[in-house]
């Protein structure tokens, strides 16, 4: 198992490398001159040229790419922002926990609401409980999060004044953003849980469980749910990895200084080192989540576990043969 994790971690290197090359190339071709943005509006051509030289923008594409990859992979240095000169790493480290908190909150909500809703719908198929749960999730999937966010602000912050409208601070500040960010996830999780629970509840082994004399509860939680958990884990992965994408919108609506706001601002001001750094950072995050998800699959399903350990066993046996 440890071997598998190490192997997967090593695989991340070429993956991140290609993400780096792609994002660098894209930013290279994006129209607009960063040097001119850095320079004040009344700067003349000479000043701009100076800035260009200082930022290394006068170098050819391949040299700049080499320098950038070297910085990122050997010095773990994403460079500095060209708009305010601050270190990108430290900005990311400062901002990421807020985005993470928002995402994890959303995950908790999807687990606490989405999964039970799905289970209730699945154990009472085609009854009013199922219909209500599925109607709710259909509505929830169809609501654009930014609109929901604005409505929540209008109702709970402006009209009722119960919760703060924007910014960060105590726990209260995260309630509205979390709700706005998680509604789609909850609905998707409910649907996913329902369909995979229905499938496992219709399996033959459930009849065996009934024949053993297990109670309904025992059947649902001890047998049907563990067997339905792979799509549920996949959906959790989507909540966590999609949380970043969602945060682009939600953080901007609620002015939460997280990764999303950072990226959007950088895009607007053509702060290309920040865009590159943030995208690479997100890529690493998604890769790690992917690994955790795969380990989660192995944890719940012995057949997948056997695939991991089995392959490494075989390999070590082959190696021994070679050595002999």
């Amino acid at each position, binding site marked *: 198992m440890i071997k598998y994790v190490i192997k997967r971690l090593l695989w991340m290197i070429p993956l991140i490398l290609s993400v780096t090359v792609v994002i660098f190339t894209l930013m290279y071709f994006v129209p607009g001159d960063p040097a001119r943005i850095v320079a004040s509006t009344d700067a003349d051509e000479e000043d701009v040229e100076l800035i260009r030289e200082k930022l290394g923008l006068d170098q050819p594409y391949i040299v700049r790419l080499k320098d950038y990859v070297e910085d990122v992979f050997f010095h773990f240095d994403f460079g500095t922002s060209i708009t305010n000169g601050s270190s990108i790493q430290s900005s990311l480290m400062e901002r990421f926990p807020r985005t993470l908190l928002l995402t994890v909150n959303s995950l908790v909500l999807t687990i606490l609401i989405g999964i039970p809703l799905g289970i209730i719908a699945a154990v009472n198929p085609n009854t009013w409980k199922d219909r209500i749960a599925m109607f709710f999730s259909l509505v929830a999937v169809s609501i654009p999060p930014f609109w929901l966010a604005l409505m929540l602000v209008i109702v709970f912050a402006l009209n009722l004044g119960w919760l703060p409208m924007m910014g960060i601070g105590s726990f209260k500040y995260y309630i509205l953003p979390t709700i706005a960010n998680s509604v789609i996830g909850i609905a998707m999780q409910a649907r996913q849980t329902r369909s995979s629970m229905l499938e496992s509840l219709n*399996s033959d*082994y459930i009849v065996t*469980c009934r*024949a*053993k*004399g*297990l109670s*309904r509860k025992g059947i649902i939680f001890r047998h049907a749910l563990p067997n339905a958990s792979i799509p549920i884990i996949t959906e959790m992965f989507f909540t966590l990895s999609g949380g970043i994408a969602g945060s682009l919108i939600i953080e901007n609506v609620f002015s939460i200084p997280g990764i999303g706001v950072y990226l959007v601002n950088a895009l607007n001001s053509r702060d290309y080192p920040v865009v590159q750094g943030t995208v690479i950072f997100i890529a690493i995050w998604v890769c790690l989540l992917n690994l955790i998800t795969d380990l989660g699959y192995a944890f719940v399903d*012995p*057949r997948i576990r056997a695939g991991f350990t089995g392959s490494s066993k075989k390999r070590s046996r082959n190696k021994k043969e070679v050595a002999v």
Partner: protein
Amino acid sequence: MEELKRSEQLNVKDNVNTKVKLKDQDAFLKINHLVVEYTSEGEVIHAVNDVSLSLRRGKTLGLVGETGAGKTTIAKAVMRILPERSSRIPGGEIEFNGRDILSLSEKQMQKIRGEQVSMIFQDPMTALDPVKTMGQQIAEVVRLHNDVSKKEAAVRAEEMLELVGIPASRAGEYPHQFSGGMKQRVVIAIALACRPKLLLADEPTTALDVTIQAQVLRMINDLKRKLNTSMILITHDLGVVAQNCDDVSVIYAGEIVESGTKEDIFDHPSHPYTIGLFDALPKLDSGASRLKPIVGLPPNPTDLPTGCRFHPRCPLATEACGQGKVPMKELTSGHFCRCNKRKE
């Protein structure tokens, strides 16, 4: 007119009752006039129509019939594990060990299932939970019905594995690590873990290789004798019936068409369907190069033929066979047959 009808009904009932009395003094499972229906997309599927059976303690009853004849449905009805939403039992009684199964609450049924009545399923490949170890799956049923600690249950599970011929060291393995025959042994171990009084074996060897079939059947019989269990053996294999059963009921389109002791059925098959089943067996000594199948297909259970259900396929059928319900007739003591062409 009405009175006449009522008295007729009474007569029929009396008739049946005396028959039941004659035969099952010590019957320990009695099924009377059981009817089971499934509903599927608005259509009613008549799976079991007025089936009566009885089983004596320690004996084996063979339930023989084609696919879809309702054999499994009868077994599931006895355990009350029919699909909750799509099935219905509009009539009949199931009496097990003096208790009326159909009137028990779900809670009471949970106590009976697995402990007093248990079932061996047809397809061992899918009957086990793929994410639980074999040991856990056996221990689960032990813990459900016995007040034992987790450890004791695990020990019992290992004993059961040994009993069905699997080394106890494999208790920590998962279903995907076992072959089909081994899985069936585990299914049997689960079924017998609480020493049930009644075992419902639903085609326990159909999914297995021929080489394993005999082994598994021998094992079931040994264990059955050891634990003094009664058994209903559901099969479409007359060879299996010959080796294992005391009594036989032949079922066609959800109806019992012939029942009796094994000797009655094998030596004097009377219903044309039973005779057809025997004719469809390959015989080594007759020299015939082709089997003699029963013509046609089993009827559509949503639209059963009137009269004798078998008449459209029956070589002896006359026009009269298509009209009116055909009653069971007792040919010799204990040997019943549902055919107008047979004289009592």
